[in-house]
């Protein structure tokens, strides 16, 4: 068991994940800056091209979410918990949560303004596009 964990840690260090910020093909922008991604997932930016954005996240303990928070949002868990506590007082909510990339893809295909992130690039014919790409630190 210890060997497997060691191999996994080494593999993760050697081949760090990539994070793809993805959206429906009809999303009004073709790329996003890191600041824009951060603003969308922290509920600081709600509209784009006059349409309401639907940010989608993964469950609290999902490793990809941990990586996203650390790399893209650049905030620790504690900072985010306090951030959303303050947001609650201001009438803001964290993004909607899905259980898997498969579910995220369904949302992205059906909702024009849905934005999420995946560890694998979307396939041709998925009706999605990549808005930003980052490497997990």
């Amino acid at each position: 068991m210890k060997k497997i964990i060691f191999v996994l840690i080494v593999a993760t260090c050697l081949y760090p994940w990539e994070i793809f910020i993805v959206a429906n093909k009809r999303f009004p922008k073709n790329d996003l800056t890191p600041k824009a991604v951060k603003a969308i997932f922290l509920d600081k930016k709600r509209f784009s091209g006059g349409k309401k954005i639907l940010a989608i996240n993964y469950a609290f303990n999902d490793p990809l979410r941990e990586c996203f928070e650390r790399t893209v949002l650049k905030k620790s868990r504690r900072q985010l918990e306090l951030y959303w506590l303050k947001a609650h007082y201001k009438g803001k909510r964290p993004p909607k949560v899905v259980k898997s990339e498969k579910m995220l893809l369904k949302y992205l295909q059906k909702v024009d303004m849905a934005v999420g992130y995946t560890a694998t690039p979307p396939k041709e014919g998925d009706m999605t596009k990549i808005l930003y790409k980052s490497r997990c630190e």
Partner: protein
Amino acid sequence: MKLKQILFLSYLLSFILKADDTLIPGYNIPQTPLYVGGYISANYDGKREDKLLFDDIALLFYGNYEKFDLLGEIEISDVPLKKKALRIHTERFRIAYYLYDDTTLYLGKFNSNTGFWNQIPINILEDTTTYPHIMENIFPKLTTGISIYQSFEEGEREISLTIQHNNDLDKHYNNIIVDRHYSLGYKDTMDEFVWRLSGGYYKSVDNRDYFYAGAGIRKEFLNYTLLSELFTKRGEKKRDIPYDGYLQLTWHMFYMHDLVFRSEFYNDESMKIKENISLLGYTFRPMPSFSIKTEYIRHSKLSKNRFVFSISAMF
């Protein structure tokens, strides 16, 4: 209600009324976009007549639909634990409308767009139970009117204009009762460093005119948070409060444990008081939505030196 019961109830509420996903409080009313939540705070202040009281019991409700956003807050404040007197106030009630992607219009009663502390002025969200002198003496904490916010560079910079040209929505719930308040605010964010400029004019209901202006900074380091604000206020003929400021350093000693030091300095010429206030506090936050705080406050002139202790929770 005894202190132990309050402690237990606060802790229980903060656990029960949480969102499904994370540790974020708030409860979604099924089949609606509405959320309800609130916060409570009970504190002990050695210098107060009612030493132990609920200084805040508030119910929050909010939701958004298309380009509209609703937020309300009803508060029962300063309830002595031994009495049954209740004072219910509308602390905030506002509707927001997103005019453009980066432009938002607010209508109703809301926190004035002034300073850092005033943006989240409740016990559970702050590092100390007591608040700085500026919070009661420089500007009206709440405004009933219209406000427009314009953000730039994905919210990194923000400018706001607020206009009140009417009476307060709840005349009894504000630190300064006014019927005119015009203010401008500017906020700039550079990673973990944020600075703000604010200024405005208000007319109190006893027909006195005041102007105020101030600046503030907040910087988050890995283990420290630095917060500082400096304001000045001028009456019709003279400077009522030439300066009023504070510097606060919060040391995140260990996970859940913070140590806070605050140094305040002000000169209130209308009251003929010029003094320094020092605060040393400790906060235990076993979970983000529940905190236990204790602090010692020392005044250089007024005989208000005291210990303050509080329990607060958000749900």
